[in-house]
């Protein structure tokens, strides 16, 4: 199954080919069925040790990786920022060396610095899976988004995908842009000009600040979480103005094609980037994404662990 997979690590989707992305998605198909069985466990990673190294807080992604690893029968340890030696001044490099000295086979890293996964991957023999590095990439989120689109739409060719929200600071957006374009979809980024700068056009995406023009043509809308009070104060005037210009309200949702998918990587700000009822509506695949995330992460762990040399 993994004859075409040659990577020890999954750092980003920018470096993957369309064939490699397809291979992950096909591998995930097989693992998705495991989740529907009475016994949700396969012995694929029996005897392997996986460390969830989460330097930046996360519940959803960490839980998904933990469940994925357990279903593959790996042994798993969770390390969070609060409990790691990094708070005592240990460098990321030394932390990684310690984990390696403890015979870790796979390190799943969540970190607030762009490039942290690349940094680690080039310094340890273990597989490094990027679970989000700063505003750089979140490859398994990108893959699960693609998996969900493929599951519902069957193909990527010619699909119009609109990603709406805080693009500048979003690793989810970047992973989606890189992978979707490779798979033949077209990507339009929508949001305030401060959070969707024109430089993104150089990545091959379209940039728009007119959400009402984009929605009628979209086959998929992927809504990203908006954070205002905490860190983005100078980027736009406030939540109510955001909703006025970019929020997916019920009124705006009428512009959507009936079969347009509504996606969100979570956690959702109900009533901000998306109307609460829409999040639970017929077009929403938000919770399919979560389920698919498990299968995709099982596939990624399985493929990368098969390459790493102990």
């Amino acid at each position, binding site marked *: 199954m993994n004859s075409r997979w040659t990577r020890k690590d999954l750092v980003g989707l*920018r470096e993957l080919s369309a064939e490699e992305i397809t291979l992950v998605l096909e591998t995930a198909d097989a693992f998705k069925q495991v989740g529907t069985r009475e016994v949700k466990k396969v012995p694929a990673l029996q005897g392997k040790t996986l460390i969830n190294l989460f330097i930046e807080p996360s519940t959803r992604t960490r839980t998904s990786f933990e469940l994925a690893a357990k279903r593959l029968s790996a042994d798993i340890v969770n390390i969070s920022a609060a409990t790691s030696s990094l708070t005592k001044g240990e*460098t*990321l*490099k030394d932390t990684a060396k310690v984990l390696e000295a403890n015979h870790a086979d796979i390190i799943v890293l969540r*970190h607030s*610095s*762009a*490039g*942290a996964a*690349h*940094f680690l991957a080039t310094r340890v023999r273990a597989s490094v899976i990027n679970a989000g*590095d*700063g*505003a*750089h*990439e979140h490859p398994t989120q990108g893959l699960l988004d693609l998996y969900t689109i493929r599951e519902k739409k069957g193909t990527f060719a010619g699909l119009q995908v609109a990603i709406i929200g805080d693009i*500048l*600071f979003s*690793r989810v957006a*970047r992973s989606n842009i890189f992978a979707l374009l490779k798979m033949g979809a077209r990507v339009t980024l929508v949001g305030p000009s401060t959070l969707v*700068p024109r*430089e*993104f056009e*150089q*990545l091959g995406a379209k940039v728009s600040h007119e959400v009402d023009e984009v929605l009628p043509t979209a086959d998929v809308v992927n809504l990203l979480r908006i954070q205002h009070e905490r860190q983005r104060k100078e980027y736009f005037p406030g939540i109510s103005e955001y909703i006025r210009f970019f929020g997916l309200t019920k009124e705006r949702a009428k512009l959507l094609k009936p079969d347009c998918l509504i996606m969100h990587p979570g956690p959702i700000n109900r009533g901000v980037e998306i109307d609460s009822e829409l999040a639970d509506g017929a077009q929403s695949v938000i919770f399919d994404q979560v389920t698919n995330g498990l299968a995709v992460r099982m596939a990624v762990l399985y493929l990368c662990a098969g390459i790493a040399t102990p």
Partner: protein
Amino acid sequence: MTTLIRNGRIIDPANKRDEIADILISDGKIVSAGSEVREQRSEIEEIDASNLIVSPGLIDIHVHFREPGFGWKETIESGARAAAAGGFTTVVCMPNTSPVADSPSTIAWIKDRAAEVAGIHVLPTGAISKNLAGEELAPIGSLAQAGVVAITDDGRCIQNNELMRRAVEYARMFDLPVLDHCQDYNLVGNGVVHEGYWSTLLGLPGWPGAAEEAMVARNILLAELCDHRIHCQHISAAGSVRLLREARARGVKISGEVCPHHIALTDAAIENFDTNFKMNPPLRAQRDIDALLDGIADGTLEILASDHAPHAKFEKEVEFDAAPFGIIGLETELGLFLDLLVHRHKTIGLPRLIEMLTVNPARLLGLEGGTLSFGTPADITLIDPDLEWTVNAETFESTSRNTPFDGWKLKGRAVRTIVGGKTVWASADSLRTKHAS
């Protein structure tokens, strides 16, 4: 002691000399080659400079020798050796040490230490503001008396325009030039690279050239207001060059310097998150490089410097945004400038290059040296402009290894560095000289 440097191409821009001739050194000073010293002395050391350039000792007005306080990165001793190996006979140290060079006692310590361990001239600058905090003036007059050659808050930039105005006005009284690391902190934000295509692609926080340009514009206005010299350090952005060009044409006492990395590399180099490409100001875009080259060609930018900024491997080998800014540069500086400006881009010729590395910085800071005038101390650099060599960081004299240029093939470098008539560094090949008796 008498030394004869024979048959070299003497390039001495201050004296408008460019000719094949001999240079005679007696008792540490340059004397007329035809003078009687030659006959009187029985023992003359001869240095064959055939096919070499005989230049005034090179001057770098922007280095960080990390003492006091950060000796594991670089000491005055190791920094001076690195400078000598790069062809430099005079360097000017920035004040961001620990303690900060904002008091006469720290300046005295640096000068004593340099006199003790450095084979070249290591000259201190003083801070503009106490502890580089940008809040109140350092004792600028006392620093001047203690022997600083300029004041600067390099590494930081005074954001308060009123404080900067008073600093420039006050420094004028002591004829001390003010050097400024131009950056507007609000525009820099938490940036670690140039804002553009690569920051967008990699998700690294960037800052635009405008953050530098805003402060260059501020400095132009203050230099005019105070009628005193402000020198803008390590210019990286196209707009800064345009602003400087316009102001200098009007006779404003403003100048700018260029570092090798800002013309050798674009921000594309950060693709693999290698922290040896992280410096402040950051590597920018090709259009910025083009503007810097234009500025060098037309004289808008008249000084070349390294911003030699040593950091230990353990400090640099961390996440990109956590790593300190800066790279070492003294041992690659001349090679890069020769290779890029003279050979590859043909931006300027050798005489102009040497002017930008000798008499121009000497004039800016009022330093002795920078010329081969008779009677001046024999600080001389012998340069082989066509020697092809490969950068090997492992052989560096610097304590640190944080260079992005390891493995680069360059054309041209210094082969011998002479301070006060004494060879303080020579390449292995050039040491095979005749010692006539």
